[in-house]
């Protein structure tokens, strides 16, 4: 449909190789006066062990899409599968348990509890699940993001990039099937942003981690294996093996 080179149409239906599948997901925000269609009938699959970037101009619905996929919000219609589990039917506490066992999230900002040290923040999901991880496991997760020596620091004593990497370490500690990242570099300068992106890329390459990232930064998107473009809540294009230039060009074409 969007038959340019390097682009394919979105797969319809579920593939066994996908860690996350969205089937005809629609999300409306209703107010008394108007219904806003944030996401309309999106069908997407996200392959295991790959990194996918969701792109689009502001208001295109990329954050909503990510929140639906991660089970933060329940879609108005359609289904969301994490592996074989249909999470669109789970209640709030089941979703909470899902979030601390099978998926992990990193946000643009405010990822860490200010009162806890880096180490305590990292172990938090496991502690919430009732486990007490050995400190070696926590240090190991911090080492994977290059922050083993900052374990005892509080968020206030870390740079923005370091805080994001601690958030990634925390996301890793549960061995999640999928790691969602919502604008992980949005609040960072170029240097710090690059640090975070390479940490994410490292996870995909070395651990075979599935990563799904919403971003509006072509540099960030170019780190992914695949880029999905959203506009007005609808998937309008896809690129595989993207480059910053190709992403930027497509984005410009979409008016973002």
């Amino acid at each position, binding site marked *: 449909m969007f038959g340019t080179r390097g682009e394919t149409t979105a797969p319809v239906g579920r593939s066994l190789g996908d860690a996350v599948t969205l089937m005809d997901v629609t999300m409306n925000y209703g107010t008394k006066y108007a219904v806003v269609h944030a996401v309309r009938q999106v069908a997407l699959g996200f392959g295991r062990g790959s990194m996918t970037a969701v792109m689009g101009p502001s208001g295109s619905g990329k954050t909503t899409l990510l929140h639906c996929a991660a089970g933060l919000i329940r879609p108005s219609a359609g289904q969301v599968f994490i592996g074989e589990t249909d999470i669109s039917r789970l209640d709030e506490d089941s*979703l909470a348990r899902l979030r601390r066992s099978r998926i992990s999230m990193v946000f643009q*900002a405010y990822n860490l509890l200010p009162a806890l040290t880096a180490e305590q923040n990292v172990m938090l*999901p496991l502690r919430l699940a009732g486990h007490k991880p050995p400190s070696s496991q926590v240090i190991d997760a911090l080492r994977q993001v290059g922050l083993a020596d900052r374990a005892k620091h509080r968020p206030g004593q870390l740079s923005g990039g370091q805080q994001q990497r601690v958030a990634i370490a925390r996301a890793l500690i549960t061995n999640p099937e999928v790691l969602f990242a919502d604008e992980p570099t949005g609040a960072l300068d170029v240097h710090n942003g690059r640090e975070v992106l390479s940490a994410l890329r490292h996870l995909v390459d070395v651990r075979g981690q599935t990563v799904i990232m919403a971003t509006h930064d072509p540099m960030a998107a170019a780190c992914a294996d695949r880029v999905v473009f959203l506009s007005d809540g609808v998937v309008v294009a896809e690129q595989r093996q993207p480059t910053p230039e190709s992403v930027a060009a497509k984005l410009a074409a979409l008016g973002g």
Partner: protein
Amino acid sequence: MFWISLLSVRTRWKLFTGLIVVVVLGVTMLAATGQMLLATRDASLVRDQIGAGRFEAASVVVRAQQRAHIPTDDGETTFDYAPLLLEARRVPAGLGSTVDAVPGVRAVALDRTFSATLVGGADGTRAGHGWSSAALAPYRLTAGNEPRGRDEVVLDAGTAAAQNLEPGDRTQVITLGGVRDVTVAGVAQGPGGDGRFAAPAVFFPDQVAAELSGAKDFVDAVGVFAEDGVAAEALAEQLRAALGDQSLVVVTGTDKLDPATVSDYTSAVTDSGSFLAITALISAFVSVFVVASTFAFVVAQRRRELALLRTVGATPKQVQRMMIGESAIVGTLASLAGCVLGAIGGQVLAGLTVSFGIAPPGFSAPVAPLALIVAFLVGVGVSVAGVFAASRQAGKVAAVEALRQADVEQGVMTRGRWLIGIGFFALALVMILLMARVGGEASVVFAIVLTEVLVVALAALAPLFVPPLVWLLARPLSAWTDVTGLLAGANSRSAPRRVAALAAPILITVAIGSSMLGVIATTSATAAADARAHLSAPFVVTASSGAGLPQDTIGRMRSIAGVADVAGVVQTNGWAPNLGEPDQVTMGVADPKTLGTVFKVAAASGSLDAFTGSTVVVNREASGLLGWTAGQQTTVYLGDGTAVPVTVAAVLGADAGLPDVLLTPEIAAGHVHDPLTSEAYVTLAPGADLDDVRDALAELPGVTVATSEEWLSSQSQNSQQDNLVAIALLFGMAILYTGISIANTLAMSMGERTEEIRLMRRIGATGRQITGVMLGEIMAVVLVGVVLGLLVAVVTVVGVWRGLASTGAEAVMDLPLLQLIGVVATCVVIALAGGMVPTMRALKVTAAARPAE
């Protein structure tokens, strides 16, 4: 910048709603207690509340002049001191016919007032009257008929209802002549049915009343009914002219009521006034403290917003002006609302104090503009002042703070906190040192202020105590819970300012409640210990109701086999010159022979053997106040104004629960209308069986028999009970207020924490876990408040204990554990209930931000 103030009030409505609630309730409390206090101080208002009582229907009343004349010399001038008599003066019964003969008089009714109390009734001692005086009110029979037979009485409706008596029922009345078996002939409704003060009344047939009054040929008053068309004032003039006797007074209007009843009522109101003064003081302190700390808290909550203003170029001065503008708006509106509520609250509170028995029936607190104006000004003033201090700090918020992520609170212990904390702490130290010198009674007054000084000191220094106390709590919590204890601990420790602000209302409630309980328990335990040390009689017999034991009953007790002696002190009041000015003192009539056998009291100077004839014995405290020494010649004035020259026979080495001045029966004879003994101390003959004597004593009508130990403990319990009721009212009001402010402050603190809770949701915390963290944090707040509050209470009680010990008596420190646990438990429950609000709100925070945000 004023427009920003208006806008912020509109947009930050949650925060401001919290502030408004606190100010409204604080001003309400101030206005209500202030009105009550003014109502007790306004003599004419108090006088109006009882009206003419039993003499309502009479046109004119003639009675003896009821003032004493005590020549006084203060060293510079001599003058006549004319206090109201403490024992009523009577007029000859023959005056009735003299008055009746005066033109314009239609009829007269004689009034006799004497001691008569129903067995089992607790009210009024001088309730006995002759039936013909019922017309003066009038009392109208609502059931039964007038008293005819010698053993018939008519009761006023209130007394009959309280005792559940109807015509035909039999009961017993304690009179001077002994305990009488009587039949209720009728029930009469008198004045006071409209909720006004009504003294209890027991009407006897006139002949019987004359006998029981102890002065057959005398009456208390002559009530006069004017002929139709004759004005009361005109008749009074005529009577004055006709009688021409300086020792008589002819009165109309509300003056018709006998001065003794008036002074009983006004002193009951004044007594409640001193309690209300404490209530007003404490509620003023609590509301000022809570309002000021809430405003300061709100400023701290808004640091980021203020920093943002600074980034767009607002100067510190502008920021400060804006904040003061806001608090002026909030303070003014809320104080106005508080005044409206307070005007109503005063009436409600007056009703409560009456039903709690603190104020006499009929007491009310009308709207007093002065109290409302003061409460309003305090409300606005404290709102602005509370922000002023905090906003100086806030104005200096660095612009970059707007960009920085909320982190561990830095620089919590500001210079202001150190200054206030150390300053008030030093003040408290000085007070504690002074308390050891000023003596028992003064140190109790000191204690109330000391508690408040310590509360301020500890509230200022509270952030210092937060980390160690939270650490203590967090250790067991994190061991028993999954991660919630750890999180609650870390959150609390990293925000000592927030925890301290939240703990402040709990601190003040626990501190005031526990201090008052501890001080009361300690003073009554000390008084009991003092009495115990000086009482050697094995039994104490008291009247089972009201007035005391008549001489007849004492005589019957003496005749019981095994009883060696019965000693009692007849209580009365009089005056003693103190440096030229007469002081009112409590007096007791005691038999010199038995004084030494029932009391273990020794003379510190002089000798008890010399206590005969025209001599007096003075107790330790009064000797200090009056400056009397053994052997000194002086003059005492009895309750009916009689001057008696006496020699001080002895000064006692202790107070021993005895009246200030002890008189011999010879001095007192004929000057005390109601020679009733409140407590009779019974000593046993050698070899007498305790149980037999007790049984025999208990068979006497209208008495309660107790071993001295039982009696002492019931005495201290009674005094504590009375105080507890007062505290319950006071504490109830304070805790309601602080409870609301706890809930309020907790709810306000949630605003800035939404992000934090959302993050926990995102990481996978369940609702139960979030509730757990919130509960843990509330527990940390409660712990800090309770520990610091108890610390204040303990220091206060130690101060009072030292004060009591300084008087030489054996001071006993008593911390009533159960009651303290009650106070703490109430605070915990209130805090948890208050914590429900923010917890519910926390649970509503979802993992995803709403698109509106």
